[in-house]
Each structure stands twice: as structure tokens, then as C-alpha cells.
């Protein structure tokens, strides 16, 4: 498959939704992508960007028993990741380990470390402890939140605590606060809810509907970015949740995915169903600036936050991941199974 004008392309065989940066791999820029095919054999691809950045190499190709709806790489072990999968009717989630590669095996089986099997309803996503080596996992299904403790030596995961979100809400996703490891944000139809993991209680919520993805700003405390179906992207300050501090127009159709850059403040990537990836620069400024320099702030609001729009996609873009090793590089995955890795460097140097 031909790569875009600036990006490096790679084709998965089937349709796909999820891609994840392999954070623990400090020597290479690599990504994990899982396919979503109802009737074919699904695969997990371990993709590595070559040292000169001009080629995407398939480092490993592993067959996965079911179609993958969510995939997250473990932040401390590059060979471990989680998937949420579906067998058409039922859902499941598991922690996998990539087997030692001996080269000759073309499609080796993944070793299953643990099965997160306490769920009864549709599982939405699994979250890793945000940074560092910790055996805690959170999985979110439509109605419940589970906190797991993973014992990789015994190959088992135990439910530590569990809480129901209430029957009125159907949870659809979530994110773990990198600044406060006891806090989890979960999205449901009409709001974003914040949960305290110690007491397993809901602490607060933001009223915002149709949120597809949320992401915490890893650099700045209290900043949360939400992508909504129709109203674009909102940036929230968690200390004043009534009104977003910033609104970005998003995409011509739904805004599906959003990702904050791990290093560069205010650099936000969004993917939408209009087959485009937009790069935004929307620095939120420190709190003082906002309150005291409101005049200047309004001035900066007038600057077009859209830095660039990558439109070289054939289908909706559901998967986005910044590389944590080279934070100016991101990978995007469109529904037709094409991974495109682009560098945002040319747009940053302008600033």
C-alpha cells in the first residue's frame, strides 16, 4: 500500500479500530495494532518504525482468537498487552504476552497471562496503571468498574474491588488520571464521571453528551480533553467543570478519537469519521493567566488552533497514538486497516 505524502504507511489485512504505542519499548518506536474482522482470523501486529523513520516493519504477527475492540500496551513490559474482544455475541477481555520470538514461527500463538472474566455485560476498555510498574488494572464494562490486581507469575488476575455505575448509565470508555492515580474518568452517554479508586465512589461528573474518547493532559494537572460526536473537542479544567475552558471545532462529521501529546503542551490530535486527522495547538495556559489576563486570552483564542489536517485517509480514523519515545511522531489507524505514521515536526518548527 502506498504511503501518503509525508507519512509512512503500513497495511493490516483487515479492518481495524485500535492502535497502541508500546511505551515500554525504549529502544524502538513501536506500535501494536489489532484487527477487527468478524469472520476472518484476527491478528495483532507489532509494528516498528525503522531507525531512519522511513519504513514500518512488521516485528511480529500474532493470531488473536477474536475481533479486537480495544488494545492497550502495558506501560512497563513491552511484551504484555491487553485486549477487549468480541465473539459476535459475547465479550471478553484478557492480558496477553508476546512469546519469545525465534524468527521461524510465522504466526505464533499469544500466551494468555490472565483472563479478566468477571464481567457480565459488554466490556468497553481496559486501562493500565498510568505509569511505572504496578500490577493494577481497571476494566470498564457497560455497567461496572473493576479494579484488578494482576499476578503475572501465577498467570491470574484477581478482582480487588468492583462497583456498579448504576443502571441508568451505560459506560462507554475511560481514562486513568496520570496525575492522581486514584482517579479514573469514565464516559457514559450524557456525562463524564470521575471515580475514586480507593473508595470506589463517584466523586464528580461533567455534563457532556456523546463523548467518544477522553484523554488527560499528561503534562498539566487538571486538564481533560473530550471528543464528542458532533460538537467537536472540549478542553476542561477539572476544577471548574461547568464550562469548558476551550472548544475546538473538531471534524466535519463525528470526532472519534483524541490524544494529547505526551511532551508538547497543548498539542492535541483528533481523528474523525470524516476520514481526517487534525492536529490542534490549543495551549490552555496556566490558571493565573486565564483569570488575570483574560484580555490576552481572548486574543489568543482568535488564533486558529488548527495546525494541520491530514486528509489522506480512505476511511474513518478510529485509532490514534502518540509515540512516547519520539513524541513528535504519531500513528493513526483508519478503519480500512491502514496504519500511517506521521511526524508533526514540520508544523512545530513554525511556532
Amino acid at each position, binding site marked *: 500500500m502506498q504511503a501518503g505524502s509525508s507519512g509512512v504507511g503500513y497495511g493490516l489485512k483487515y*479492518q481495524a479500530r485500535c492502535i497502541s504505542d508500546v511505551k515500554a519499548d525504549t529502544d524502538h518506536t513501536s506500535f501494536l495494532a489489532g484487527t477487527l474482522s*468478524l*469472520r476472518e482470523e484476527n491478528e495483532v501486529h507489532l509494528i516498528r518504525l525503522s531507525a531512519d523513520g522511513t519504513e514500518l516493519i512488521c516485528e511480529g504477527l500474532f493470531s488473536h482468537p477474536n475481533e479486537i475492540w480495544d488494545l492497550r500496551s502495558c506501560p512497563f513490559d513491552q511484551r504484555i498487552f491487553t485486549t477487549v474482544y*468480541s465473539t*459476535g*455475541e459475547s465479550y471478553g477481555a484478557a492480558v496477553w504476552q508476546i512469546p519469545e520470538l525465534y524468527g521461524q514461527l510465522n504466526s505464533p500463538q499469544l500466551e494468555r497471562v490472565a483472563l479478566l472474566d468477571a464481567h457480565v455485560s459488554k466490556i468497553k476498555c481496559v486501562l493500565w496503571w498510568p505509569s511505572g510498574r504496578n500490577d493494577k488494572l481497571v476494566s470498564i464494562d457497560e455497567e461496572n468498574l473493576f479494579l484488578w490486581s494482576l499476578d503475572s507469575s501465577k498467570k491470574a488476575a484477581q478482582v480487588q474491588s468492583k462497583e456498579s455505575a448504576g443502571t441508568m448509565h451505560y459506560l462507554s470508555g475511560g481514562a486513568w488520571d496520570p496525575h492522581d492515580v486514584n482517579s479514573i474518568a469514565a464516559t457514559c452517554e450524557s456525562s463524564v464521571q470521575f471515580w475514586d479508586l480507593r473508595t470506589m465512589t463517584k466523586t464528580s461528573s461533567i455534563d457532556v453528551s456523546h463523548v467518544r474518547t477522553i484523554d488527560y493532559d499528561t503534562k498539566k494537572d487538571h486538564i481533560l480533553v473530550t471528543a464528542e*460526536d*458532533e*460538537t467537536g473537542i472540549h478542553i476542561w479544567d477539572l476544577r471548574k467543570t*461547568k*464550562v*469548558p475552558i476551550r*472548544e475546538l*471545532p473538531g471534524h*466535519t*462529521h*463525528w470526532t472519534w478519537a483524541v490524544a494529547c501529546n505526551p511532551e508538547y503542551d497543548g498539542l492535541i490530535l483528533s481523528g474523525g*469519521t*470524516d*476520514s481526517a486527522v487534525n492536529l490542534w495547538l490549543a495551549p490552555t495556559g496556566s490558571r493565573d493567566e486565564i483569570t488575570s489576563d483574560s484580555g490576552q486570552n481572548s486574543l489568543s483564542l482568535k488564533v486558529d488552533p488548527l495546525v494541520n489536517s491530514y486528509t489522506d485517509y*480512505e476511511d*474513518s480514523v478510529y485509532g490514534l497514538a502518540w509515540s512516547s519515545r519520539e513524541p513528535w511522531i504519531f500513528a493513526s489507524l483508519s*478503519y480500512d486497516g491502514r496504519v500511517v505514521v506521521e511526524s508533526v515536526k514540520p508544523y512545530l518548527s513554525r511556532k
Partner: protein
Amino acid sequence: MAIEDAPLDDKAKRMRDLLSSFYAPDPSVAGGSLPKGASLDAINTDSFDADQYMNLLVQRANLEGLLQKHVEMAAEIKNLDTDLQMLVYENYNKFISATDAIKRMKSNIVGMEANMEQLLDKIMSVQSRSDGVNNSLFGKREHIEKLHRTRNLLRKVQLFFCGKEQFIYDLPARLGKCIKAEAYADAVRFYTGAMPIFKAYGESSFQDCKRASEEAVMTITKNLQGKLFSDSESIQTRAEAAVLLKQLDFPVDGLKVRLFEKLEQSLGGLQVKIGDVADALEESNDEQENDLQLGFAVAHDASVHEFVETVRAYRVIFPDSESQLIKLSEDLITKHFLITEQHMKKRVSTATFLRVLRIIWDDVLLIDHVLPEALLHDYCFKVSQSAIKQYVSSMFSHLLDDVSGAMMKVHPQQNNVAEEQLQVALEAGKNSLLKGSMDLLLGFRQLLEDNLDLLVKLRELITDWVQAGFQQFFEALDTRFLLLSGRIKSSPQDQSLSEGLQSEKISSGLVLVLAQLCVFVEQTAIPRITEARTVPVSCVIFTAASGTVTEIVAFICSTLQHKEPREVHMFVDLFLQELEAVGSEVKQILSQGVRKHRRSESNGSTTSSLSNSLRDDKLRRSNTQRARSQLLETHLAKLFKQKVEIFTKVEFTRESVVTTIIKLGLKSLQEFVRLQTLNRSGFQQIQLDIQFLRTPLKELAEDEAAIDFLLDEVIVGASDRCLDPTPLEPPILDKLIHAKTAETKEQNSSVASPTSQ
């Protein structure tokens, strides 16, 4: 070795030369032992080889030469020997003398320490003696100096008394005379002249005199104070009084404060008057009340004059009080503007505003005349800038309120808003917008054309503000509309406005009226009013209308039946109905005026080259199609098809809006389908629904290619997400659709549909 002594006799010099020539390496021969080239002169070099030399000599010279050389050499050797001997001797001599000297030094040093100590003792005793002498003489010297000073003083006093004795004794009488004649200046002069004497000898010789003159001065002070505070006296005399008082060391500060208080009081009066003037101006828009205004103006003028006079006097009296006065006058100006700003909160016509500004400016000029240091001009500019700015913005906010007020009227009867009502609201909104902005502009023109100095200087700034104001106004209008249409979260200050709106669903009619108004603003109002930049009336408003459509689409998906499809799903009907409703609503507002204007353009955009090529493709496929069972074909077709630009810019034409809504709806449907996992019946249901939708949607929309593409995409998506994608047989499909269309026709004919008027 070489100890350089002062006299260098010939011999020593020669020796030194010899030695140095011996030891110094000769650079010319550094080349070394050239076997042949080495001449006989090489005897003095480092690389001298005796054997070689001898060989050379023997080979080259004859016997006579050799003999001669021998003699020469012998002589030289002898010479050198003696020289060497000499040197050795000399050195030895020096050694001996040096040793002697050291020996002598040693013996001399032994006695030295004792001598030094002795010396120290002696010096100490000398010092203590001299201290003693100093001490004993000190007391006496002080005494002598004192005596000397006293003598000098005595001499001075003696001299003074010769002339002034008489003066001092006469002082009280003289002062009394002065008081009687009111020649206070002279009196003060006399008194201050005598002051030093009183100070020095008041306690002793002139006691009586002092008391008497002090009493006289007291009366003088009292009189002067009276003078200072009596308003009847002329400024001149009051100023003099103040100066005299100051000379008498009377605490003037208290006076100053009191006088200042008086000034401030009069200022307060002035303020009240200004307020009155403003009030009067506000109330009296009729000509009959012009007299009243005039009266106020006169009163105001008088008080200002009074104030100015007081300030002048105060300045004369207390020349160093400028800063206070400046502050005071600045206060005055600030308060003027404060009052004006308070009045601005109500609606103030430009004429009134101008008049108030003029009054203030007059005041400023007057005060400036008296107090040029205050730079009231500049200060006034600064303050008036903000005031005018505020005025401009308040004008705009009033306008904004007017316009949105007109819109809000529609709102209360939001359920089933009749077309006429919408029309009326639209007209009202248009009118208020246009008329309001024209009035605004007229006002600003007045402001600009006025030849008041203040305004002339601020003219450019005002123009800027007005332009910025318009921009902000349109932006605010935009947000307000968005708020009214319920698309954005309200910020806290707008809470009251949106309270009524949030709970209920916004009527789409209102949204459409707002949209129309936006179009109007963009097309007509802006070019007419100013060259302000185009307001980005976002197409968010249109997605508002399409929001309902999306919801229906979501419904279609969520209630997918899991049984064999028997008929077209009821939600599809709902979808179409909603689209029709939207279409008719949009038609209402976009068919007038705008349509003619935009028609040609929109035609051009519908037949773009891209969609042309696609249309051919589509026709070909529609001929050969109905082989729907071959889903692979659609996959392949998609691969070879050009990427369709689904989302083009929304234009303000009926077709464009409806098309965009349909496109958004279909895209949403596709996304919803992709999130599902379907069984065979679900897939077939979607297939049927889509097939049914194909014809009516194409009738409604203008971009058939895109619609076709999107419909296909939905089917492809559904088949991808289906475990058993067996499509319906084409005959069954056709039959079901026929049944459905027949049913709809029947309904339409029986219920003369209200929406298609």
C-alpha cells in the same frame, strides 16, 4: 663564576671574551664534521676532532707551515694556561674575602639585639613624657579658647549695642504703631529682625521688651488669620497674610487643610450640579425643556468658575500645593466621567453624551487655564478614552439586547410556531438589527464629526473602537444565536437567558429563523454597515437541525429486529418525514431573495467535475446492478472508485442544506452500523431500508453521487458487521419496496399532507 665587578680592566675583558668564545656554541659549524670541507678553523667548534684535524693539517700544509703552526699553537696554549691560572687565582681571592665578610657580619650581629631593645625603651619613655605634657596643658588650653570666644562675642555685642540698642527697646511701641496702621508687613519685618537677639538674650537683658513685642505679634497673627479666612478680602491680601503668617512661624498646615476642605466642599457641590445637568439632559429631550437645561448649564458654569477662582487663590496662597490641587482636579474629572458612565447604563442618546462630554471638556479647559501643571488635558484624554469606549460597547450591547429580544419573543409560544409568526419574528429581527445599527452609526458619526478638541484628538481611536465593537457585536450575536438554538453550553452569566431554554427542546423553527437572520447578517447587513470582517456563521446551526435526524438514525440501529424483515422499518418513515419537515422549513426561509441571488452559484457547485464522473459510474452500475448478492463487487467497486468528497462546505441554499443533513445522517448511520454486530435478519433489514431510502433521498438531495456512495457504504458496513451476510433476494426486495411505496402514496393522498404546502 663570573662575578661582575665595576672596573673591567683589559685583561679581564679579554679573558671574558675568550671564555665566552670558548663556551659559546658557534652556530656556523653546527653542521658537524664535514670530512673534507671542514677547514682548519674548526678548532674552536664543538665538533672538533683532534685526529682529523691533525690529518688535515699534515695533508695540507708544508713543513714550514706546520712549524709555524706549531709555534703559534704553543704560544696560544701558553697564553691560555696563564689566563686560566689567573682566573683561578682571582676567584680564590674573592672566596677568601667573602668568607671574611661573613665572619665579620656574624660577630657584629651578636650585639645588635641588645642595642635595639635599649632603643625601644628609650622611645617608649619619650612618648609617655610627651603624653604627660599634653595632658597637663589640655585643661588650660580649653580655658584659653573659651576666653577667646567670649572676647570676640563681647566685641560683637558692643558693636551691636551701639546701633541697635535703641531699636530693641523701641520694638514693642513700634509694633503697636504698625498694628494700628495695619502695616503688618513692616511689623513682621521688625519682629523677625529682632528675633535673633531675643533668642540669644531674651532670658536676661531684654525680658520685658520681649514679652511686650510677643504680645504685639500675637495680635498681629490673630488679625492676619482673620484676614486669611475672610472671603471679602482680595486674593492678594489673603495671599500676603498667608505669607506673613508663614514668616511668623505660625503653623500654616492647619490653615491649609481647612482651606482645602473648603475647596473640596465646593467640589462636592459642583459634582451634584453635574449630576443634575446629566439628569436634566437625559430627561429633557424635548425642546421645551431646553430652557431648563440652559439653566442648569448656567448654574454649572457659575460653580465651575467659582471653583476655578478658589483654586487660583489657593495656588497663590500656597504655592507648593500643586500636587494636591492636581489630584483634586483629577478627582473632579474622574467623578464627572463616573457620573457619565452611570448614566450610560441607561440608554443615552449620542447628543446627550456629546453635550455631557462638552461640559466636561469646558471644565477641563477652565481648570487647565489655572493649573497648567496638572496636564489635565492628558488626564482627561485618558479617562475619556475609557468612557467613550464604554459608551460604544454599551451601545452595542443595547443593540444586541434588542435583536435577541426580538428573537426571544418567538420563543414563548415555541410549540408549533406558525410560519407567519416566524416570518414576523424574522422581519422584526431584521428591522431591529438594521435600524439599530444605522442609528448606532448615525450616533457615531455625530461623535466623529463634532469638533470638540477632545473628540478630534480621539477620532482615530473612536473609529477603531467602533469597528472592533461591530466585530464583537457580530460575534456576540453569533454566540447568542447559538445559545438560543441550544447548541453550546451557556456560560454562567448567560444562565438567566438560557434557563428557559435548556429544559425544553428547541423548536426547529426558531433555529431556522436564527439561521436566516445569520444569512441576512452575512449577506446584507455587513456590507451595508461597515467593512467589518465576515462573521463566521457556523454551520453548527444546521447540525442542530440535523440533530433530530441523527437521533432517529440511532433509533434505527438500536432497534434492529432480529426477525425476518417483513416491511420497511417504521423509523425509516420517521427519518423521511423529518427530512421533509426540515426541507420545507428551510425552503421557507431560503427561498426568498437569497435563492435568486445564489441560484447560479449553487447550480455550478452541484455539477462539479468529480460528481459528473461519478454519475456515469453510477448509471452504469444501476443498469447492471440488482446482483446484490455479489457483495464482493461493492468492495471492489469501492477500491477503484475515487474518494468521494462527502463533506463539502455548506452553502445557504435549500438544496445544499438538505443535502448536507442527509449526508450527515447517512454517515452517522454508517458509523452506528459499524458498532453493531448483526445477524442475518438485521443485515437484511438494513439492506431493505437502504434500498427503500435510495429513491426519496435522491429526490431530496442534489449530490446524488455522494448519497449513492454513502448508502452503499452503509450496506457494506452492515455486511462487514454481519455474521451471516446473506442478502435478500432481489425479487423479495422489490416486492417489499413496492408495497411500501404504495402504502405511502395512499397515505399521502388521503391526508393532504400539511408539510408540503
